């Protein structure tokens, strides 16, 4: 697998759509390309952020934050 093919596979990898047999080959290429590969994969995770930011924000119920903060407080006290 050359680096251009690795880049294509990386974009599939970060959204979890590599098939098992592709995943093995991808991991081998990942080792082969080393740091360069890791840097590219990190950049690909920006796709996650972009997809989320493409959505219109939805409002959570007001009680959720209260419950969350109560759980955090309880956890800190234990």
């Amino acid at each position, binding site marked *: 697998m050359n680096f251009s093919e690795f880049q*294509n596979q990386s*974009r*599939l990898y970060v*959204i*979890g*759509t590599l*098939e098992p047999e592709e995943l093995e080959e991808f991991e081998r290429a990942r080792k082969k390309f080393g740091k360069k590969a890791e840097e590219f994969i*990190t*950049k*690909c*995770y*920006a*796709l*996650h*952020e*972009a*997809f*989320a*930011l*493409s*959505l*219109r*924000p*939805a*409002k*959570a*119920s007001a009680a*959720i*934050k209260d*419950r*969350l*903060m109560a*759980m*955090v*407080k309880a*956890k*800190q006290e234990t």
Partner: protein
Amino acid sequence: MGRSKLIASTNRKPKKRVRLAKPPGRPRSVAPQLEPGAPSDLDLMRGIQAEDPDALSQLYDRYNGILKALILRVIHNEAEADDLLQEIFMEIWNQAKNFSAQKGKPLGWMVTLARRRAIDGLRKKQAYARAEERLQNETEQQPDAWVHNATEEEIVLSDTRALIQKVIRGLPPAQQQAIDLAFFRGMSQREIAAKTNTPLGTVKTRLELGLKKIYDGLKELRDEL
């Protein structure tokens, strides 16, 4: 699914005019604009790592809308989405020590975590069929109503959202659908092929081409991401 959510949500006419040009004197950013003096996301993550509840509270205020929208896109149920949102922010609190700024930005980390939890939740509850039915009904009856409780202000697209949607809208519908099923439904290539009655190789090509176009289209924003 007659038409993917991604297509349905991006092809509709905006309710207000969207400004796509870069505002003068303001750097274009994909992250929501912060008030002057407000702590950065990284500051808040460091606060959470130091077990400061106020940091979590601020991060929640900043991103609960985005994360809930993402969860809703996966599970299509308001009550379940609220519960999951709470669990995800609790996980952010518990797992903050695992966050590393060298591996990406806080929002990316949170989105990855939220997406995984939402897809896991969907699978655990074996809700694919029910979600499918809801999705179909929502698309047919109220194509604009996939996000509930949206205020008029929330309906106005931000620069960021408009830019990203512009990139996504530029894809052929088949590529949008493949990405939608993969990202928001957590489907494998084989599952997408079966669902869309498309050869596996075609699905792979659609995903590769579509993701590359989005990735390249976001190049201008990538550093900010």
